[in-house]
């Protein structure tokens, strides 16, 4: 709780010159939001494909690639994104490059947990629906997915929490910034970067600011977890 004394409204909303970490909080929220917006649907769709339609050689290949990506060191993801997106495609550091790098961490986790939760749905539930004359896709959407909802939610939250704390890919993609959001194609601040940079500084005040940022990051992930749990609690009850 070494970060606790740092907390104040100003700390949360001011920019770095005024002793706050506002840009980093904003940056992390944008990163999580943007990455989730594309990553979660792609991850869930891939998981559905692997679990429900994955009885062929494409799926087997996809599954192995997915497994490799899940275990990929995040620094390698960062360096790849740096080489491909930062240097070759865009030409400079940018928020979008960070988002793409993070989605390569998020998508495999979401796909894997989706596949695992769908496989836990008993086959008798699928058969019941198919025997009524429901199409396969309808069965997957209206019967199998709702049954696996709790697992899907947990997997997605885990993946989001994981990317919220990733530092290595961000160093090489969004670089960091002392200002509030400048545009998706510009460098951007983020909490993990803030923590990393501050903790390396000689001044005690900046190190303390780093601790404060760490506490904020933990609280953000925790509250995201609680909010989603609360919002879906009623519907998850059997």
């Amino acid at each position, binding site marked *: 709780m070494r970060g606790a004394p740092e907390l104040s409204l100003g700390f949360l909303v001011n920019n770095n010159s005024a002793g706050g970490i506002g840009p980093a909080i904003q940056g992390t929220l944008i990163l999580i939001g943007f990455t989730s917006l594309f990553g979660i649907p792609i991850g869930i769709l891939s998981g559905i494909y692997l679990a429900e339609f994955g*009885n062929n050689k494409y799926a087997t290949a996809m599954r192995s690639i997915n497994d490799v990506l899940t275990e990929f060191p995040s620094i390698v993801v960062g360096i790849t994104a740096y080489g491909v997106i930062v240097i070759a495609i865009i030409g400079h550091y940018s928020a979008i490059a960070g988002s793409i790098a993070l989605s390569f961490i998020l998508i495999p986790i979401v796909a894997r947990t989706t596949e695992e939760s769908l496989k836990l749905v*008993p086959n*008798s*539930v699928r*058969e*019941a*629906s*198919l*025997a*009524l*004359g*429901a*199409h396969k896709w*309808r*069965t997957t959407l*209206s*019967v199998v997915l*709702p*049954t696996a*909802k709790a697992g899907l939610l947990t997997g997605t939250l885990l993946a989001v929490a994981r990317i919220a704390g990733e530092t290595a890919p961000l160093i090489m993609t969004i670089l960091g910034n002392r200002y509030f959001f400048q545009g998706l194609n510009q460098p951007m601040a983020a909490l993990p970067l803030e923590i990393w940079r501050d903790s390396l500084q000689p001044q005690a005040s900046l190190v303390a600011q780093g601790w404060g940022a760490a506490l904020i990051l933990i609280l953000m992930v925790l509250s995201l977890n609680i909010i989603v749990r609360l919002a879906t609690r009623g519907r998850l009850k*059997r």
Partner: protein
Amino acid sequence: MTSTNNDQTTTVDPEMKMQSIDLNAWFGQKKALRNVNIGIKTNSVTAIIGPSGCGKSTFIRCLNRMHELTPNAKMTGQVLLDGQNIYDKQVDPVQVRRRVGMVFQKPNPFPTMSIYDNVAAGLRLTGTKKGKNLDEVVKQSLERATLWEEVKDDLKKPGTSISGGQQQRLCIARAIALQPEVILMDEPCSALDPIAAAKIERLVVELKRDYTVAIVTHNMQQASRVSNFTAFMYLGSLIEFGSTTDIFESPKNPLTEKYITGEFG
């Protein structure tokens, strides 16, 4: 693969709602059905009996094209529904399953749905609820499955919250909500206690007024109580088929007699 011991006596019988002709089925390399020819007569109950692993479940799963959903499963032969082969290329298996409903061995209501939604599920999932009063269909189906009186105040409760016997009748209600022409039952009482089983049996006898029923059972007393026709299967082959009275009182095949009298099985 083609049948070798077929003596061409099998012809299309217009009295039959469903008819299997030279039906063979495999799971991978393992042959599960050997040239099975059975006719299922309109508005009657046909029981399929035999020891475990004799192919009786595989047989009825071929009647609504559920067999082909098992990985590595294949089949040859024909299954006629009102004289039309349901395995013809232009026949959509989804349409077949709407006409030929199924009740499984273990009650399998949808775990995320209420009692009401479970019964309505068929109409919703198949997109056929248009122009129908859903409340009315749910009520009628539950009444038909003799479950209405027990659950009418709990329709919003989860389908899995009621007892096993009630769940099985819920599954029957779910099947008849779609108004199928044939109802296939795969050992519907084997997971139930005798009292719940007796209720299902009475229901089966009731159902034949409006539907054609095929029921798989390993309980011979049950077969003799509910059915009009009985087929005895052994090791994937049909051994004997005839009226239930004939099969149970004067079986022609010594194997049938041995099974009926409990000498093996």
